[in-house]
């Protein structure tokens, strides 16, 4: 064993010197190199969030194009081919490039801060994850520009997406984009699981973990169990298309419904992957602005866990008209209904919190109130479509389109926007505007309901989804026109939001450490946090540390300042075990992502890309893990 080198401990330094020493150790290099090599979870998360919001804007523009086309019967704004690409792009983009990444990214930003550690576990994997995500998004959008975008819907049912009917490379682009985003999501899930289980501040036992962190932990487990299904599905689709396997070919012993089972075994949990982080944000916001801890902490945690487990027992409710045995379908009706119980428990607990609390009506809370109003509608229509006979009438109609926009936008985007207003000061050091925030909220809330509520009626009136036009003799014209006009109100709201965010990031009022007087640890450091998050690791002995001890934060000393040190603690009780080193910045994750992207994109065209492409990937990975002579690597 090596001799222990002389080292500097934080206890030996006065606060300013300590800050300077830590800043030197944890800093990300300047310039292009720093951009490509950064591994600071805050930098990566910020990139992730901004990129995802760009995708939201792009997906929103696609939605507007669809609404333009649908405003009138037999309109000729878009050709059927373009329309099919656009709705596929809209759904794929919103689900895989916006909703899942943005929520995970907020987890990447907040989880390490909330559990009181200095960086996420496996920070290089985190950097890799972002680059892979970016490559996947670029692949999809470049294909769109080249008129090669997928046109088979966001769940790409075979045989339409199979070798015989999905000609060209469109479906391959879709399938490979899935692989990109799933690799990125899996990487983040692993990081979050390990961060939460092993890097919590001393004393943060399981019953003191903030609800948002619990929700990210639950989400990450769902990601880990669900994503392999879609990776296998999309890979076998590519194999069917590229090398002639027969997974989905009924003529050779394959099966068309196998695709649907595989896709929805992932696809249903996917919607809870979007929903669970959002409820975590709701809990955080409710707690701060109701001025009391969330009522029923244990019940909330159990609800999160129950939802994640039940999420795997519902997938067949997307296949109620595929002709599966009736007994099986009844089971899936029952299981789908039962997931309303944990959802209800959470709603009831938030209501109780607000009831007993003293609500402060700032923009974040407004979005949460909007969330409760709309999400309950979406949840209730979910319960309706969970009934087999009900669903046989409204499946694949605008009723379902209404359901899922209510739960996706009402249930996830509203909390997300509330969360942005809430955490913006922490992330940027500046407050967003309260006035513009209220405008954004009301425009979005009203615009949203006017846009999507009538879709329920369109569905009941028999309008199927995914039609590029409808005939003048159908009674859908008026409502469609109304919906299209209302969507402009919605977009105006989003524009106000974007303007506010961009403006405030430059000139907003500067934010204090804890501008909302919130209880959790991310507010115990400066806004924005320094590269090392906390000058000294916090010690926790309650659920709401900043409320329990408002005057003073308890911390631990004894960590080295000349290497990137953080505390690894036990899973259940968070007893400190090790002063672990956290990896430095490295360019290799970037190269690994480049190599992986080349291999994956190449494999759209030839299977040999996998063989030759794996060589650079292996080289990059070896470079990544090869030990360097840095203080982090000693012993």
């Amino acid at each position: 064993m090596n001799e222990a080198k002389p080292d500097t401990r934080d206890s030996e330094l006065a606060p300013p010197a300590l800050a300077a020493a830590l800043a030197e150790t944890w800093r990300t290099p300047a310039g292009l190199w720093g951009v490509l090599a950064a591994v600071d979870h805050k930098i990566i998360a910020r990139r992730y969030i901004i990129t995802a919001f760009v995708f939201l804007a792009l997906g929103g523009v696609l939605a507007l194009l669809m609404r333009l086309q649908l405003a009138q019967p037999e309109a000729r704004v878009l050709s059927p081919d373009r329309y099919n690409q656009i709705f596929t792009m809209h759904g794929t983009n919103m689900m895989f490039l916006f909703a899942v990444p943005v929520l995970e990214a907020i987890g990447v930003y907040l989880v390490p801060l909330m559990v009181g550690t200095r960086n996420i576990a496996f920070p290089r994997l985190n950097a890799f994850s972002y680059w892979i995500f970016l490559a996947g998004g670029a692949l999809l959008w470049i294909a769109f520009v080249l008129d090669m975008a997928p046109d088979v819907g966001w769940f790409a049912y075979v045989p339409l997406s199979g070798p015989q009917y999905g000609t060209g490379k469109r479906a391959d682009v879709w399938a490979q984009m899935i692989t990109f985003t799933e690799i990125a999501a899996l990487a983040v899930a692993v990081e979050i699981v390990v961060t939460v289980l092993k890097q919590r501040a001393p004393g943060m036992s399981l019953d003191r973990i903030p609800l948002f962190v619990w929700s990210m932990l639950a989400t990450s487990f769902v990601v880990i169990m669900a994503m392999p299904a879609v990776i296998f599905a999309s890979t076998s689709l590519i194999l069917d298309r590229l090398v002639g396997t027969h997974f989905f070919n009924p003529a050779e012993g394959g099966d068309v419904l196998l695709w649907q089972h595989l896709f929805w075994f992932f696809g249903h949990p996917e919607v809870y992957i979007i929903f669970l982080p959002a409820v975590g944000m709701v809990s955080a916001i409710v707690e701060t602005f109701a001025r009391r801890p969330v009522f029923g902490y244990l019940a909330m945690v159990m609800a999160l866990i129950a939802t994640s487990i039940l999420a795997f027992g519902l997938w067949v409710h997307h296949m109620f008209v595929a002709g599966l045995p009736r007994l099986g379908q009844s089971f899936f009706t029952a299981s789908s209904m039962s997931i309303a119980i944990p959802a209800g428990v959470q709603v009831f607990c938030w209501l109780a919190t607000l009831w007993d609390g003293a609500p402060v009506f700032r923009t974040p809370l407004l979005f949460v109130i909007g969330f409760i109003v709309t999400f309950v509608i979406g949840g209730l229509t979910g319960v309706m479509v969970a009934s087999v006979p009900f669903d046989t009438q409204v499946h694949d109609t605008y009723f379902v389109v209404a359901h899922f926009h209510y739960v996706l936008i009402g249930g996830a985007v509203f909390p997300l926007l509330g969360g942005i207003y809430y955490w913006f000061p922490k992330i940027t050091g500046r407050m967003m505007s309260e006035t513009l925030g209220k405008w954004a909220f009301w425009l979005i809330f009203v615009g949203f309901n006017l846009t999507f509520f009538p879709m329920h009626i369109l569905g009941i009136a028999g309008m199927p989804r995914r039609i590029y036009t409808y005939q003048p003799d159908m009674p859908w014209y008026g409502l469609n026109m109304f919906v299209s006009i209302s969507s402009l109100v919605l977009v105006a709201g989003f524009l106000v939001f974007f303007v506010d965010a961009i403006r405030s990031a430059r000139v907003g009022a500067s934010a204090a450490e804890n501008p909302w007087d919130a209880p959790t640890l991310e507010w115990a450091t400066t806004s924005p946090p320094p590269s090392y998050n906390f000058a000294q690791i916090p010690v926790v002995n309650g659920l709401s540390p900043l409320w329990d001890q408002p005057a003073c934060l308890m911390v631990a000393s004894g960590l080295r300042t000349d290497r990137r040190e953080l505390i690894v603690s036990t899973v259940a009780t968070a007893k400190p075990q090790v002063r672990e080193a956290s990896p430095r910045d490295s360019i290799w994750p970037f190269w690994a992502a480049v190599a992986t992207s080349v291999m994956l994109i190449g494999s759209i065209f030839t299977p040999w890309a996998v063989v030759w492409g794996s060589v650079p990937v292996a080289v990059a990975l070896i470079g990544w893990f090869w030990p360097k002579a840095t203080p982090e690597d000693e012993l």
Partner: protein
Amino acid sequence: MKTRVVADFSDLPIHGFRSASVTWWGTLAFMLIEAAGFALVIAVYLYLMNLAAIWPIDAPKPNLLPGTLVTVILLVSAIPNYLISRWAEREDLRKVRVGMVLMSVLGTVPLAVRAFEFPALNVNWDTNAYGSIVWALLGLHTAHLITDLVDTLVLAALMFTRKGNTSRRFGDVQDNAMYWNFVVVTWLPIYGCIYWIPRL
């Protein structure tokens, strides 16, 4: 924010083994992902089998020899694999070096035999769905064999450099051994699926 120091961690070790190390947990998480993947592909195998009137579809049963040979080698390799993990725990550099060389060999041999397994399936991936799924099962496991072999080779090389003799490397050796166990254990249900289910 004002702070008050309530604990001192100067004496904590700077590296932890097994459950005290984040890499160990990371490896575990990746194993969970891959186990979910394997379980799923096996489920697809059973699903397709259920649909088919006869199984295997239009193909003779796979030959037992190469697959069984791989199974035996993998099972045997578990013994040195277990030992190397113990040596690493004791930070016995000399034995670990010998063990890593041995494990590199024990990783290469099954891969060589694997090359004969594919023809022994007696069906092509593009013959029918049965062919597709057995090739997928075997291919997926082979990918794991290759990954772990590359990891073992690199780590073996590393152990012969100056950088080898650190707790961190010994921890890596242990994690690598754990992963190899995973590769061995997941092979058993796949072996059963490919070779024995058609014989039931």
